[in-house]
């Protein structure tokens, strides 16, 4: 995409996000253009989810400038698809995969949704097929594997035809093959739909192939830029401690952080 033609999707200037007046994340400056994918990296409690929730308009206490598609975050809500952590959902509710996906498409109109409209169901089936889960549409959400649940939630987010996808730890608590499945779907979304994405993660490994930008935060902005700019020894050590390292192997970067995660630029594990 021609950078001069690309639309600015997110712009943050001197952004400080607070809870009850106390800063949770300070001094954030970055911008993200249409079609780009930002990988948001940092240790537990660094402020990754806080930043994501502020962009999604779930949290509104902040100072500085934050624009999404040139508007306040809440003004751009219709353009945003939010994918929460799957363990934050109440799985006691007996919903099928198809019903969960349809949820993403019915709240643009009406207040009572006794019956899901036929067109919405057809679209839900189509996006379930897009994420490779057409065969599980009638299975209960809670009976799906971790990777399948995450893909169902991705399908639900696609129902509203978003231009910005916000994903909160889409790889957490998944085994390596499920991580690869989800990363594959994210790659497909980027490739075929060109949707801008912000993805928070502890495990950057399977996602580096999809990431155009990496942001490292730890209560404040540590680094932001292209993966090869951010994934440097000195930068990684400043957040994860002296044991963290970045190792170049065959032209690719491997990132070893203190929490035993190994990240490689270009996808795959070490």
């Amino acid at each position, binding site marked *: 995409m021609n950078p001069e033609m690309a639309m600015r999707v997110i712009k943050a200037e001197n952004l400080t996000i607070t809870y009850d007046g106390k800063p949770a994340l300070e001094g954030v400056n970055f911008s993200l253009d249409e079609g780009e994918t930002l990988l948001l990296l940092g240790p537990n409690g660094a402020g990754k989810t806080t930043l994501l929730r502020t962009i*999604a308009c*779930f949290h509104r206490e902040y100072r500085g400038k934050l624009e999404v598609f040139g508007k306040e975050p809440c003004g751009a*809500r*219709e353009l*945003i*698809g*939010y994918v*929460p952590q799957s363990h*934050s*959902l*109440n*799985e*006691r*509710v*007996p*919903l099928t995969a198809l*019903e*969960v996906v349809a*949820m*993403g*498409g*019915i*709240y*643009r109109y009406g*207040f*009572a*949704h*006794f*019956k*899901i409209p036929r067109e919405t169901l057809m679209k839900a089936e189509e996006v379930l097929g897009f994420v490779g889960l057409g065969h599980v549409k009638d299975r*209960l959400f*809670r*009976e799906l594997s971790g990777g399948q649940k995450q893909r169902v939630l991705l399908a*639900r987010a696609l*129902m*509203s035809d978003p231009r910005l996808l916000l994903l909160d730890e889409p790889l957490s608590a998944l085994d390596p093959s499920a991580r690869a499945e989800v990363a594959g779907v994210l790659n497909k979304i980027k490739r075929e739909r060109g949707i801008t994405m912000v993805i928070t993660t502890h495990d950057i490994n399977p996602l580096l192939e999809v990431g155009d930008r990496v942001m490292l935060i730890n209560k404040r902005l540590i680094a932001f830029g292209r993966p090869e700019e951010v994934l440097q020894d000195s930068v990684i050590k400043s957040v994860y401690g002296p044991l963290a390292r970045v190792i170049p192997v065959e032209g690719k970067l491997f990132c070893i952080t203190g929490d035993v995660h190994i990240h490689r630029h270009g996808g795959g594990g070490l």
Partner: protein
Amino acid sequence: MIPEYLLRALLASIMVSVLLGMLSPLINTKGLAFLTHALFHALLFGAVLGMIFGLLFENLALVMLTALIVTVTIVLLIAHLEKLGFSPDSAVGIVASFVAGLTVLGFGVLYKVMATRPYFPLGESIVSYLTGDIFLISLNSLTVLVLGGAFLFFVMLFLYRDFLYLSFDPEGMESYGGNVRAYLMVLYVLVGAIGTLIVQTVGLITLQVVAVLPGAIALMVSSDLRKVIGVSLLLTLGIQLSSVVLAYLTDIPPSGLATIMLGVIYGVLLFRR
């Protein structure tokens, strides 16, 4: 020949069953069991306040009206506290404790007002609110129960899917354009209004059990939504009708019988697991 009072009791049981059978799975999936506890306090306070007004204005219709207004106001207050950031447990705990204190105060006032109007027999009404007395339901009360119940049933039916989505993922619902606060308010008002409508037939003491257990049992025996609602409806209907018949034959209060039967079924299922 079935006595008229028994017929009225059976009809009331059917309406109560339809309402509780539908509501109970929602109470379980949304985690509203603690809210029904707050409902207990709200209803009792509303009934006591209603009886005071009923005596002062010599109009017993004010009892249910006041109970309804007080209960709905209190559940909306709980919903508002949750919106302000209180956890559901804290919101219910704060409001229920405060209302319990008001109820004690209300009883003091009620006894004083009753002493000034000895010709107005309200003592039985207080007992019927606590234990439920389905055999004493009047034709007027039955009409209110059926018409009001039908209205609440259809509101619940048309919003059922939305309430399920609200229980499943409120943030997701909000992010896709759903008005989470409005749905939560409507759900809480429904719970409060249904509680008010059925309290004199079910009884405050047993209300929480008959509102929670059918849904809990249905969710134990099935994971298919239609079956869950079907089991909950049939179970509530079977328990309510059989408790009325048993009560007719044995003179034991039907609400107590219903509670015991539900408890036994739940216990057996739990043990078999």
